[in-house]
Each structure stands twice: as C-alpha cells, then as structure tokens.
C-alpha cells in the first residue's frame, strides 16, 4: 500500500563514490508521527535532506502527495509543504514574535506592511497551537523551547503538510518537551505528517505511531511505536546487543587532583561540589541546559563564576581566562569542534601541537620537524587516519579523526586535568568506542584527572569511574562503580 503523504522508494545516495544510503524506503501518512532512529552517520539526516530537496538522491523514487517526482529541489519541496525544524534556531532574535512567524511574508495593505494584520494573524496561528506567547515580545527574549514552537508556527503559516523535526528536544526542559508533544498532537489532528528524529528512546513510545530504525544506510526495522521495546530498538540501532555495563576496571584511589566547592555561576548552576582523583574519569551527566557543560566552561575560564572555589592539587585556582588555565595544566575540549576547537585551514600537525609549541624549542622558537614527529607518534597510538600525514588540513578529516587530534593536543601538552564537553558529538559509532578507550587509557597512564560533561547516558556507562547527575543546575545524585547504569542515569536526570 502506498502511503498517502510521502513515499520514498529504494533511495540510494553516494557522496564522492561512497554510498551512504543503500536503497532505503520511507513512507508517511497524513496525521502520523514517524520516529526516525539511528546512530550518528546512519543516514537519517541524509534521508530527510533528500525529502526536503536539499540534496538529490543518486537513484530512487520520491512521491509526495501522490505526485511522483523525477527531481525534487528545495523550492518544489516547499511548494509541496515539506518543512524542516532544526535543533539550531533559525529565527531573527531582534524581531518580534509576530514578525518571526511571518518572516519574509509579512501581510501587506497597499504595499505597506500592516502591523495590525500581522499581529492578528500571528495570534491566530499561536491560538491554533494553543500556545500562549505574547506576539509583541522579542524572539530573543523567549526561552529556547518557545522559540522552537515559533518555528513550528512559522511552518504552519506556510501550509506545512510534512514536518521534519530534527532532534527538537535536545535543548528543552521537561515542561517544554511536554508542551511540544501537545503541539504535535494538535498538528496530528490537523492532518500534518511528522518525521521525528531523536536519540531518546523513551520519547518514541510517547509520541510515535511508527518507528523506523536506520543503520549504516539501511533501513533495519520498521514497527509500530507502541510495540517497540527499548532493547529491540537499541539492538537494531547498534547492530548487536546493547553493551551492558562493560564497566571500566576500577582504580585504586590515589591523590586528589581537583576539588570543587560550592561553585556557582550567575544563572546556569549553583552550589556544585565534587572532587576528582588522579587517573579518574568522572562524568557529569545531564540534559543540555542542565548546567553540566557550563561547569566545565567556568572551570576553564570561559564563563564567569559568582562564587565557590576550585583547588587543583590543593592549590587555590581562579580561572580568569583560558590562557591561565592552560598554563596551569588544564585542558579543555569544547563541544562545538568546528567553531571553538579546530583550526580548520591549518594542518593536523599544527592543530595537535598548538599547546606544546613552547616545549618544542627554546627562546620562543619551534624546532622544525617536531610538530610532524609529535603528530606521527599520536597518529599511531590513537589510530588517527590522515591520508596525507601531518600536513593534511584538519577540516578534511572525518569527525572522529578530528576529535582524536584535538584530544591528542592536550595529551601532547601533558595536562594534569582534562575537561571534555560532549567528546563524541558528531563522531561515528566506530570512532566513538575508540575515543572512550583513548580517554580511559590516557587517564590511567598519565595520571590525568578527566571530567566529562555529557548528555549521552551510554557515554557515561562506558566511560565513567564515577557519575554525577545534574538537573536544573544542581547535582542531584552520584553513582559509583557498577551503580553507573543507563536506567538510573536517565530517571535521575529528568
């Protein structure tokens, strides 16, 4: 039976001769929510980009609302009512809510924008979603969740029939997630079909009518949303039984490396206290916005603190700026690799050596060749795949390989304390396991205290000697050893 809204059939897609989708089918009915699951790199975003006309498939049939399309471009897709809602906000923060909803399509009377009409219509749309947001407010003054609803409202004014939501809940609080789900119910009853991309398995049973799982460019499972068990989904996503508590070897407690007492920031977290020993890996687990990443930012001097103290090897440490922190033997890996981590146009060797330059020569000089030697050493140890060796531009590497280079940057600098924020974001499954192994190995071998802020519970299970769970800016519980368990983590953090 052909689905009445969207039908993708036998979609193949290759990039530079590498096939990433191997004949995937996808169908969506009006008024249906289809959850699309899969690890990073499974092909989810490629598939929805094809549906949105962003990229064209190498082969395959696309049928939208009964009309089969030989070629689909962005404009056509929009005409047919396909709309994407991304995790990142695409609004204009300095304009009002009403203006944002009708961005670029402001109602006009005699050629002039009619504010009265604009506000009236905006109110109408928001009412339709049963959302109560003042239409005069600046979009930038709203909460993230509200701004996301705004984007959905905008899609509705443009007659959305198919709505693709790409991990919309990643940055939302629980209340906001509930509100989003209510809005989605509204849309369902109005006949909008939705493709819902998520990493959160618990959301599937809550909102999805059907679930489809992609793995390595193949569709491996399609089933009714209520029937899918968690284990079944995880197995389908990973291709093998979920790694259950393959817990790292426990370490003997050694010297205290980091001690944090009553640390508070102005808005993101308050009264946080914990300590980390040499060689220990501690994960701070919490949803995005819970304050876990912000603690590490503050400890490295990237975000002002309002109170509390930090001791590094017993000495008081005031993180005024990243330069001071790095000189004090602290390393920091940001979540946003492209924007804050890598020097895209520079070589992998340079990217790796940037913190070790002062050790590679005297009087401010860097001895030639030492960068390449350092790179080759780490490339071998960490299995960094750079086809053209040390001189290759880092931007041309895969996400996983880039991340290994950025980790090696701090290893080469011999830091005592390493702060990692979402260390495997945008890294494919295979490399992810590698990175966990690398972090653990380096922590033990060089007696490094490692603190990881993450929103990925699997990461915590595979990585942490100890886990601190954060919710709404506070540490709510602590798990040690075999008590670090996926279910406990998820329920404690909500």
């Amino acid at each position, binding site marked *: 039976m052909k689905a009445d809204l969207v039908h993708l059939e036998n979609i193949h897609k290759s990039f530079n001769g590498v096939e990433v989708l191997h004949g995937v089918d996808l169908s969506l009915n009006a008024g249906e929510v289809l959850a699309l699951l899969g690890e990073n790199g499974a092909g989810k975003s490629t598939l929805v980009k094809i549906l949105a006309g962003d990229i064209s498939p190498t082969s395959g049939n696309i049928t939208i609302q009964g009309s089969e399309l030989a070629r689909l471009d962005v404009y056509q897709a929009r005409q047919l009512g396909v709309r994407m809602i991304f995790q990142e906000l695409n609004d204009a923060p300095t304009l009002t809510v009403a203006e944002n909803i009708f961005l670029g399509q402001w109602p006009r009377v005699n050629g002039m924008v009619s504010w009265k009409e604009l506000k009236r219509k905006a109110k109408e749309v928001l009412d339709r979603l049963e959302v109560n947001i003042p239409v005069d407010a600046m979009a930038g003054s709203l909460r993230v969740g509200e701004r996301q609803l705004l984007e959905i409202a905008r899609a509705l004014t443009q007659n959305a029939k198919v709505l693709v939501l790409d991990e919309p809940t990643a940055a939302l609080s629980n209340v906001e997630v509930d509100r989003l789900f209510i809005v989605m119910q509204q849309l369902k009853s109005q006949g909008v079909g939705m493709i819902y991309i998520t990493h959160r398995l618990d959301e599937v049973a809550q909102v999805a009518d059907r679930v489809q799982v992609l793995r390595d460019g193949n569709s491996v499972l399609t089933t009714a949303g209520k029937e899918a068990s968690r284990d079944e989904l995880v197995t389908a996503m990973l291709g093998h039984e979920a790694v259950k508590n393959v817990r790292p070897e426990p370490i003997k407690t050694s010297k205290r490396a980091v001690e944090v007492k009553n640390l508070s920031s102005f808005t993101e977290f308050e009264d946080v206290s914990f300590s980390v020993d040499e060689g220990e890996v501690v994960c701070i687990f919490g949803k995005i916005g819970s304050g876990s990443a912000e603690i590490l930012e503050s400890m490295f001097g990237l975000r002002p603190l309002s109170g509390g103290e930090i001791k590094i090897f017993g000495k008081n440490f005031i993180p005024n700026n990243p330069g001071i922190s790095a000189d004090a033997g602290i390393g920091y890996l940001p979540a946003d690799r492209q924007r804050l981590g890598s020097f895209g*146009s520079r070589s992998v060797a*340079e990217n790796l050596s940037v913190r070790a330059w002062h050790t590679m020569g005297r009087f401010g000089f860097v001895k030639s060749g030492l960068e390449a030697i350092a790179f080759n050493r780490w490339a071998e140890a960490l299995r960094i795949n750079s086809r053209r060796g040390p001189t290759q531009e880092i931007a041309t590497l895969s996400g996983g390989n880039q991340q290994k280079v950025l980790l090696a940057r701090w290893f080469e600098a011999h830091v005592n304390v390493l702060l990692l924020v979402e260390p495997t974001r945008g890294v494919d499954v295979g490399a992810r396991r590698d990175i966990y192994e690398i972090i653990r190995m380096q922590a033990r071998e060089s007696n490094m205290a490692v603190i990881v802020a993450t929103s990925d519970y699997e990461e915590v299970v595979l990585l942490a000697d100890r886990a601190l769970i954060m919710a709404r800016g506070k540490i709510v519980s602590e798990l040690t050893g075999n008590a670090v368990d996926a279910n406990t983590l998820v329920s404690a953090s909500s």
Partner: protein
Amino acid sequence: MSESQTMSQAVVSEAKKRRSIPATAPLVVFLLAMMTFFTITSEYFFDIENFKNILVAMAVTGVVCIPGTLLMISGQVDLSVGSSAAVSGMILAKTVNAHGIVTGLVLCLIYGLVIGLINGFFVTVVGVSSLITTLGTLATLYGVALLIGNGQTVGMRNFDWLGTAQPFHVPLPVIIFALLSIAGAVVLRKTVYGRSLYAIGSNPNAARVVGIRSNRILMLTFIYSGVAAALAGAILTSQLSAGDPNAARGLELQAITAIVLGGASLAGGRGTLFGTVLGLLVLGVLNNGLILLDIPTFWQRIAQGVMLILAVSFDQVRQKLNDKRG
C-alpha cells in the same frame, strides 16, 4: 566505508608524502611571463640598473608589507600605514633640520610605537574591527601630516644616505627590506608567535579557547606595523630629501594588493612572506614596465586597482573551492 575499515588501512607513518603544487606557482609563472613580455617590448627593461630601480621602488612598500602579511595572516589589516609613513617623514624632516639625525630617527621610532599601540588598543581592547580602526587612523594621520608641514613640503638637509646609499652596489633600502623579509619569514615559520598568528587567523574563537593570548599577540603585531610604517616614511623622506605629506599616499593599497596577490587570505590563516615578496615583484615589474613603455602614469593607477580586485577575487574563488572540498 566504515571507520574501522579505513582505520585498519591507515598506518599513518607510512602515508605517502605527496607534495602538492605550491600556491605561489601561478604567480611565478605570471611574473616570468610579464618579464618576458617587457624584455621583448622594451630595450631598457632587462638591465641591472633597471632591476635596481624596480627593487628600490618596491622596498618602501615592502617594509610595510612584512608586518602587513603577519596581520593579514592573523585576520587583521592595517590601512593606516600610508598616512603613518607620511607623518613619520614630516617628523623626521622637521627634527633632523633642528636637532640632528639621531633625534629624528628616535622620534620616528617612538611615533611608530605609539601609533601601533593606538591601533592595537582599539582593535584588541575596545573591539573595533581593524578595517574601521585603521581607516580612521588613515584619515586622521593624513590630516596630522598636513598639519605638521602646514600643508607644505619640508626640505631636509644632510640625510640622504638612508634612502640612496649603495653599500656593495646594493641600494640600502633594498638591503633593509631583504633583511626584514628574512627575519619575518623565520618568525612566521619558526616561532611560537608566528605559528600563533596562523592559528588566530584560522579560527579566532578556537585560539581563545585553546588559551592563546590573542590580544597580546595582535597588539604586538600592530606595533610592528606602526614601526615599519615609520621606517618606510623615514626611507622615503631620505630618498626625497624632503618630508612630503603626499609622498606615501596609496601605500596601504599597494601593500594590500601585494599581500593578497601573494596568497595571504583576507579571511586569515593562510599566507607566506615569500608569496608577499612575489606579489611585490609582480607590482614592481608591472609599474616599471608601464613606465618604460611610455604609458601615461594614470594607467598605472588603473592597473593597480584592477590587480587588487583580481587578487581579492582569486582569494574568494579559492575560499569557495576549499569550502566545497571540505
């Protein structure tokens, strides 16, 4: 292809060391083509004295091009060098006449430091973009240069050796330029400071997050630029035996044209001093050839403007190609 497959193939130490064609290759070809053309069309071109002329003509621009390249690599630009050189020349002419050469040169040096500090302060501490800051100082300092000489040229006595001496038959300005270029190239390639400039230009946010003291480094580079402009002004004034407020007009445009021609990216993070020297040679040979062919001087202006736009367009096209590849 899965990550694990590619990984097993990769033993990086055995990776083939492929040398790609250097980015400056097209420029070398262009330079040689131009030289061939002028050799054929003008009997005066291929001559050692003429080559000296070309080098002397480019030395003054060259001196400001060295810190200019460092700035461009770090994603900044200093447009004030033209007016700055003019002010320096006026100061020199006035003080040499009254208090002697040493005092004059010391004052020029101090002036260069101060103007570098001012530019650096507004860019790093206040956070104004370098384009706007130095456009402002460019305009302001032109006024200052006119003010010092009351709009007139100021004659200078007994100090022409800096601009015209020829130890070992090589003009002194050319020697100064050559030494500074070598020093600059070593600094860029071999020092933490130089490597940091590339990092800052490539990704200023990442540079901050990784703990590079960007403000300090940029401040220092603006100071170099100020001092280099002051030196350029001194050489020029010595050549003319007079401080002329209009003598260095357009210096900043020549410098930026040469730097961008030489392959430094306006977006920062890329560039070499070797490239800049090539860019200077291209401009120098072009100007010289046009003069030898008796083409009216306003055509030189036009040629220079066209070269700037071509160089920048080339940079843009290259950036787009890179984005597509990455």
